[in-house]
């Protein structure tokens, strides 16, 4: 019962991921794409957590923290690039 309910919810997350991908492709500006990427990876984080419950394996969930860290790094780097146009400063 549990896993079937969770599978339905997981499929909802897949559908929303597709919607974010539309925004990712459509743009129209760089911040828009980064925004879509952010949303997509938070989506993925939940997806991993749900999957680890469905597969009954705690290993998948440990990928969430690096994912969040990297997405923060991407945010920071893009905004740095937009503000300073140079990485060194």
């Amino acid at each position, binding site marked *: 019962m549990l896993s079937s309910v969770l599978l339905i919810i997981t499929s909802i997350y897949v559908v929303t991921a597709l919607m974010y991908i539309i925004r990712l492709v459509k743009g129209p500006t760089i911040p828009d794409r980064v925004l879509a990427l952010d949303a997509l990876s938070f989506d993925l984080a939940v997806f991993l957590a749900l999957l680890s419950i469905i597969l009954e394996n705690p290993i998948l969930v440990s990928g969430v923290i690096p994912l969040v860290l990297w997405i923060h790094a991407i945010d920071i780097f893009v905004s*740095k690039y937009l503000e300073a146009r140079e990485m060194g400063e």
Partner: protein
Amino acid sequence: MIKRDVLVAFSLSLLVLSISLIIWLEGYIRIATPIISSLGESYLYYSYNPWYSNYTSFSLNVVSAIIWDYRGFDTFLETTVLMASIIAIYTLLRGFEEKVFLQPKGLSTITKTATKIVIPLIIAYALAIATHGQLTPGGGFQGGATLAVISSLIIAVYSLEFLYYMGYRSKRLVVIRGLCLIGLIIVAITPLLIGFILNTKSYIFQNMSKEDSFISMPSFLFDAPLAGSIFFYNVFELLIVFTGLTTALMLLSLRDVELKKAFEVREVYE
């Protein structure tokens, strides 16, 4: 120009078509079947196996066992490749000058404070996945890459200046990196030296005892499997990857003023 593009595209599409046809029609690559190669199954079976102590490495994480024990030499060379890349970048940009007072401009206070809170947590997390590489997914490279996130965040959020202020200089990092590589070599050679002293057979990169050699690294620490040298390799690899990636990040994000000095030096060539 356009003609060439069309030609290239056409030939590549032919390639795609042919390979796709092979995969689709013949179905010869085994994907998503119940069978995997026996070699893979052997790894799964022997990785943590007290009942076959000649083939085991006492690591719960099979990937870690393959990377540092069964195919440890590959990973050693891979680390050397990283070293070569750092030396090559250093060679390219040689003669740069790290200037400390350039009035840096970081991002806003909010981002700075949020990053400051997270940095110690990232360090703890990275060290956790590196030191538990033999128990849970992760390992030296993953830990080092996670640690390198810190330096990339500092460069972006604070500035390159702040890294200098904290005492990071690319030269020092290169030195640490080299020393760690030598430490890795020492760990790999240790069984060989012990074998020489005791006058028995032993191998480079040996971890647990083998059929013809009884020398063995420690397999347990307290109550957890240590997997012998895998633990040491993971710690060294953590430092190597962290210092390597940080050096590369620092060198590649040098400011124009600092690079100028490097390119002003006209060397005498041939």
